[in-house]
């Protein structure tokens, strides 16, 4: 009998697609279990962007309180001492719970994101972007919020295999391609970032790892590197500029 990691159990319990049962069932929880296993009992600050699967929003329109925010509940239980922050363009504020704070912001609006980070005190230890999946949203959000990630913190972007066709900007370099070339400062990408944001990323990313999605609802060949995890350099480490 295979031992199922705790995070996967929680994801399945609360209906998150990060587990092995619901919606696309990506099993990102396997990767998160590797990354977070030593952080269980830390008093973390975790931010997740994108709080409810589109299908759930459709099925439970007007009745969100019946399902809550699956991922936020999962994180709250997995990290019993953490402060959990949720951010979405849809108003889920009524679903706030103990240790779960919910806000509203637009991933394409720097002022909105920056304002949220400042208002919450920033210094997030873990940020997870499971938002719109549009490349410009992911990149602008990364550009703004990576600066509000604590030294040594982890920034995760999910579902890099998918961009909503009606939102994707023509000519933009998809986030997965951009990130694959980030550590070598690859040229030729077309990005909506500010120079200061790109410079900060190049200087401050300590490592970048990719994980595949295990979903059986997508062509296998498209699921490589569906989850990216960037670790920010710890405090006291140089900018890396030579």
């Amino acid at each position, binding site marked *: 009998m295979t031992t199922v990691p705790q995070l996967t159990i929680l994801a399945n319990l609360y209906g998150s697609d990060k587990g092995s049962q619901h919606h696309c069932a990506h099993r990102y929880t396997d990767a998160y279990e590797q990354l977070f296993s030593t952080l269980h009992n830390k008093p973390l600050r975790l931010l997740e962007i994108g709080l409810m699967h589109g299908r759930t929003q459709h099925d439970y329109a007007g009745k969100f309180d019946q399902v809550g925010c699956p991922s936020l509940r999962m994180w709250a239980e997995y990290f019993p001492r953490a402060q959990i922050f949720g951010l979405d363009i849809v108003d889920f504020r009524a679903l706030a719970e103990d240790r*779960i704070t919910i806000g509203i912001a637009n991933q394409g609006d720097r002022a909105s994101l920056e304002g949220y980070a400042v208002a919450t005190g920033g210094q997030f230890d873990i940020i997870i972007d499971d938002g719109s999946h549009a490349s410009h949203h992911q990149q602008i959000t990364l550009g703004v919020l990576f600066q509000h990630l604590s030294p040594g913190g982890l920034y995760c972007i999910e579902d890099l295999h998918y961009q909503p066709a009606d939102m994707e900007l023509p000519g933009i370099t998809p986030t997965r391609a951009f990130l694959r070339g980030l550590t070598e400062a*690859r040229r030729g990408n077309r*990005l909506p970032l500010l120079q200061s944001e*790109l*410079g*900060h990323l190049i200087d401050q990313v300590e490592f970048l790892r990719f994980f595949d999605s295990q979903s059986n609802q997508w062509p296998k060949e498209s699921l490589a590197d569906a989850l990216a995890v960037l670790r920010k350099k710890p405090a006291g480490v140089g900018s890396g*500029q030579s």
Partner: protein
Amino acid sequence: MPTRPVLETQSAEVIVPATLLRSTVQSFDLFDTLVARRCVGPHEIFAEVGAAHGKRDFVAARIAAEQRCFAAGIFDLDAIYAMLVHLGYCTVEDAERLRQSEINAEFDNAIPIVENLMQVQDFDIIVSDMYLSERILRSLLQHVGLRRPVHLFVSNDGKARDRVWAELGCRWLLTRHMGDNPHSDFHLPRSHGIPVSHYTGATINATERYLADLGWQTTARLVRELRLRNPYPAGSLENSAWNHFTALNLPLLILATCILVDERRSRGLEKILLVGRDCHWLAELAVHLYPGEPIGHIPVSRQALKNDTPGALACWASSHLAKSLVADLVSTGHSWLDFHRRTTVPLNLFTLLYIDNYQYAAFDPADIFRTDGFTLSFAITASTTTPQSRGLEVFNTAPHGTPLGIDVLGGHCAPRYSSHHELPAGFVAALGHAQAAIITALRPVRNQVVAETSVLEDKPAILRTLVQSICAPNWVQQLSQAI
């Protein structure tokens, strides 16, 4: 369910137009980042121009004209020469000749900084705030081998005055700027959020400074030029081999050649006959340094020397051993003493490094110096340098295996080589590549190198330092791991 304060940061939908997407590129400074000057600084260019036109005061006049233009906010070559005319230094016609000479001198002195040129990709940006025009700088980049299409920004001191970064930022996202100036290439772009790479490789390094301080200025610049031309990736064995070879082995062999020529001439011998496999490169270098000097090379080994075939004996007979300075880089002298005892051929043996502290059971080491008809002389001894000569042998390896024997073919001595080479092929190839680059770079400065070398004081002491450096234990270990 307890409620917690919620945060409200709502905004209207924001559209990000595709026109706000910018392409990522790298940017590079030009001089001393992609291109270096053989003469190091621009003032030496002016000195060359002045010397070529018989104008001793040209350097001062040229600098003064440039400063006047700079103060007026003008910073291009045409304006500087117009200022020379305006100041009454020369006529319009003379100014044009001087200007063209300066441009020619820039091209003649241009050295590619290969490790950085290899990083330039299509449509990267090159930024220069020099007084040379865009047309001239593009030609200069082509001259040093950059064939890629690049954006060239000539900003007339805009880089140093910070303007250029804002201009570039309107069109591109810079993933990195590389340059040599701490202010304009490091602090300023960094203040604009641009990741920076501060390159200082064009400045003279400690080894080159050591050579220059000895009085070996031309050789020091030659070594610097070769270092900048290193085509191998940083951190690779081949890259290190190239640098080690050109920085240490080259001056060592230049000095060795001078010592050999002096020795032959002072003893009135007919020629220098280089005889070790590890004299392969020395032989080629010596011929280029002293083209009129009688120098030959027959690569032999201990094994080949013992091989008294009729062909080998005929080869030795035709080589006029008795009238030659038989020279090797490293030797105990014993194989040649054994050869002399077998063949009774008189020998004048010279070895750069005499291994005086290796005990052969078959010989009394003192026999080396008390055998009639056999003379051993040397530059330095192993007991004063290093107990091992492995580094010297490794860096002077030939592209072929150990000589197994020697015959006469078509009237010429023809060694037979082992098909096996004990060193990594990439390492040997890198040395060969470096040797070819040395011959090319040496050609225009041969006379200066020979003249400077001949007047060096305490040649054995310099030799000792170079041998100790080239035989440094970490190199032997690194190579042992690679083999």
